[in-house]
């Protein structure tokens, strides 16, 4: 009989009108890996935050090792040997790994050497590849995550909670992490991993608990379940997980990018000799580890980045002329008759204004129309109404501030607005990040529709499975360089994964 590590009884947590968790019951044992599966917004992170002392439940009890526990701060959580690895790392960039690990710990006296030894021992025990003296800012995302994991192990945690640990890793790094987690399981630790990726659940965990809209749906043994059963539990109904990919029609160059160089504020090269062509009637996928220059590339095309070198040519399908877009502001680009739509990564910080309602957000693109000094709200209001209807945006009304909508609905508003301008180029950066399955597929379909209309679609994605299913061509970017372009119809995750980690000179042909 396995020993019970965490037991949650009737946990409820409410934020204003939003019920994040409702009567959740859950058990996790020692020596097992439990997956918490659920769509974004289903309350997984909130639930785990209550175990690790960030929130306090409104109702219900948490029992650790069979004893009722009151956890009001992360410090309390550590007293119960609970450690959480957050999705966004909480590290001091200028410190070394060892300094970060012992930060805030009271061990009597400050002895970095002894601590370093201890860190080495932990790394060896579980097979971490970690240099305790390395500074955080020189580390890759995967290394930073390792520091976070070692940090909680160092504090003696034997219940580990990982919040979407694979979101930022390459397929190869994910395998490595899973091997380590399995080793910890052998060591008798209790591992809870939050995820919404089904194949990871199936390959890693012993049991899966599913949450849907804050409610506990059930727990199944991984060995006895299937992908379709889990999806059904997660979404509440059967859905097909196929993206149809039509053959590209009338393919012609629309956007030709040549030898772009871009430096960030501190002078570090973020784009290095980037050249590619985006064709009309095609979806061009861009794959790469987060922060490899994807954002800068799209912003450069949209006229939001200073470029050191290179050119961006737009082939106007109406007039047949070729326009140079480099060095132009977004307004100048639009005045040239270039119908460029851009769904940026930061939806509420760049694509929309969170405190404005849907109508006013529609106006962002159109408020300049007309000669008068006053804005015209009639047409945007109509547009808002039609987007709410056709894309099934769930909102109390067109006058609700968009920041109050859920992630999926915010994205529908943004994508809806960008598509309504009937673009010839549509760029979308991580358009399904944080969206539930239904909304994600709605977005994929919208992109596909645009492709059929002859739009050149550029899609920056993080889920390689989706990229391979959706895109006609996939361009891989690594450290600001293009490391390869593959055909979406006959490539593999492994091939893309390898290209993603390829950097420097080897990336050049």
């Amino acid at each position, binding site marked *: 009989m396995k020993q019970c590590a965490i037991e949650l009884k009737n946990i409820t947590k409410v934020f204003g009108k939003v019920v994040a968790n409702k009567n959740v019951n859950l058990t996790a044992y020692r020596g097992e890996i439990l997956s918490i599966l659920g769509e974004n917004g289903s309350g997984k992170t909130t639930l785990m935050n209550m175990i690790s002392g960030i929130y306090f439940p409104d109702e219900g009890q948490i029992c650790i090792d069979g004893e009722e526990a009151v956890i009001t701060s992360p410090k309390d959580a550590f*007293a119960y040997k609970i450690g959480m690895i957050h999705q966004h790392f909480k590290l001091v960039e200028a410190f070394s790994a060892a300094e970060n690990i012992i930060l805030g710990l009271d061990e009597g006296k400050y002895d970095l050497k002894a601590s370093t030894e201890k860190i080495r021992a932990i790394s060896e025990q579980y097979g971490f590849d970690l240099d305790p003296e390395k500074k955080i800012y020189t580390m890759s995302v995967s290394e930073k995550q390792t520091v976070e994991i070692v940090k909680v192990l160092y504090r003696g945690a034997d219940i580990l909670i990982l919040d979407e640990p694979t979101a930022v890793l390459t397929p190869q790094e994910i395998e490595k992490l899973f091997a380590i987690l399995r080793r910890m399981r052998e060591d008798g630790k209790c591992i809870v991993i939050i995820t919404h990726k089904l194949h990871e659940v199936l390959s890693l965990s012993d049991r899966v608990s599913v949450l849907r809209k804050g409610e506990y749906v059930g727990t199944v043994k991984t060995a006895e379940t299937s992908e379709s059963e889990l999806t059904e539990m997660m979404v509440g109904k059967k859905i097909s997980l196929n993206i149809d990919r039509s053959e590209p029609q009338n393919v012609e160059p629309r956007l030709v990018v040549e030898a772009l160089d871009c430096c960030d504020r501190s002078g570090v090269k973020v784009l290095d000799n980037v050249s590619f062509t985006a064709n009309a009637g095609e979806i061009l996928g861009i794959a790469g580890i987060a922060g490899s220059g994807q954002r800068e590339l799209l912003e450069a095309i949209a006229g939001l980045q200073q470029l050191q070198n290179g050119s961006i040519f737009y082939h106007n399908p109406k007039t047949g002329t070729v326009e140079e877009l480099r060095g132009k502001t*977004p307004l100048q680009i639009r005045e040239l008759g270039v119908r460029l739509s851009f769904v940026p990564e930061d939806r509420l910080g760049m694509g929309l204004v969170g405190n404005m309602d849907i109508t006013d957000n529609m106006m962002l693109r159109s408020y300049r129309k007309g000669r008068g000094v006053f804005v015209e709200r009639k047409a945007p209001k109509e547009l808002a109404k039609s987007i709410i209807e056709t894309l099934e945006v769930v909102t109390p009304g067109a006058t609700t501030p968009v920041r109050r909508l859920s992630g999926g609905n915010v994205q529908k508003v943004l994508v809806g607005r960008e598509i309504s301008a009937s673009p010839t180029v549509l760029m979308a950066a991580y358009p399904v990040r944080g969206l539930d399955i239904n909304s994600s597929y709605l977005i994929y379909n919208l992109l596909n529709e645009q492709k059929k209309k002859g739009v050149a679609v550029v899609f920056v994605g993080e889920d390689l499975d989706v990229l391979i299913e959706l895109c006609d061509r996939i361009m891989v970017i690594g450290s600001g360089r293009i490391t390869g372009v593959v055909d979406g119809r006959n490539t593999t995750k492994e091939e893309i994964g390898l290209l993603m980690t390829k950097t420097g000179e080897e990336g050049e042909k």
Partner: protein
Amino acid sequence: MKDKAVAKKKHEPLFHVVKRDDLAWWQVWLIRGFTIVLGVLLVIFFSMMITGKSFDKTFDIMFRGVFGRLMKGSTTMLWKYLQEIAILLSLALALTPAFKMKFWNCGAEGQALMGGLASIMCMIELGDRLSYPVLICVIAITSILAGAIWGLIPAIFKALFGTNETLFTLMMNYIATQIIAYYVYIKGGGSNVINPVEAGNFPKVGNNDYFVNIVVVAAITLIMYIYLRSSKQGYEISVVGESQNTARYIGINVKKVIIRTMVISGALCGVTGMLLVAGKDHSINVNSVGGQGFTAILISWLGQFNPFIMAIMTAIVVFLRIGVAKVADTALLNSSFSEIMVGLVILMLVGCEFFVRYSIKFKRKKEAKA
């Protein structure tokens, strides 16, 4: 850490704070309204403690101090009250465009002083050379320009070099104060006071000195409401204020909007300076604006950028200021008492926002206790 086991908590905390955003607008205003009533009652209570007068008496002094003896047909008190509202409100309106752009302090104090300085200079230097209508026009133009320039300088530095506008405008306030002090020193001779100037005063309407001021501010209130709500520029201001990234993304020239908005705010502050000098004091000194530029920031914030709500808030703040000053007068206290009391009510209003945004959950009944 393993050896030094931290004491595990046995009991639930007494209460915890929970965020909420489910209040309807009328509930929000109920909380604020209740806070104001509570604040006024507290002010009366403190006044009673200090003056030793009864509740009725204190209340009576406050009301009569503000509204005068309404029954007996004397309206001058009321007009004075409206005039005070007009000055404070016009400052609050002036800084609202900048405030909406998230410029928490745009230096209204200094801009108003410079506007006032321009007015008094015109009145003294040109008063006997120009005809009355021309003089009034010149006063208006120069005051507006002076305020606008005082707003333009920090805006240019902000837009081009990213300087901090709050500190910059604060320094500009001191410069303005010193320029005024110097001018008063020159013109006032040894007494350091400029005697009221006759030329270039706003006309009386009926028997009323302040009619022009009040009408001008009422007009600005209406125009500002429309400007912020329905003009393209007003829309641009809100986008820039909410998110400069979004503004850039849709092609708004952020620098241009910053500079334009600061010039508008500065120009309106210049108008306030003119109202103060040509419409009210007919003189100037370093305390002419008297810190109202800072009170105006709070008015703008309390009014949530809505000029009409700002007008109501101004009326409340000015009521307290005048009313409590009367109470203090009768007890031979100085004006600091009235300032402290106004500060108290404003603090309470700021504090009540906590209850708008959060609710407090108290310890539950111990259902699990065996």
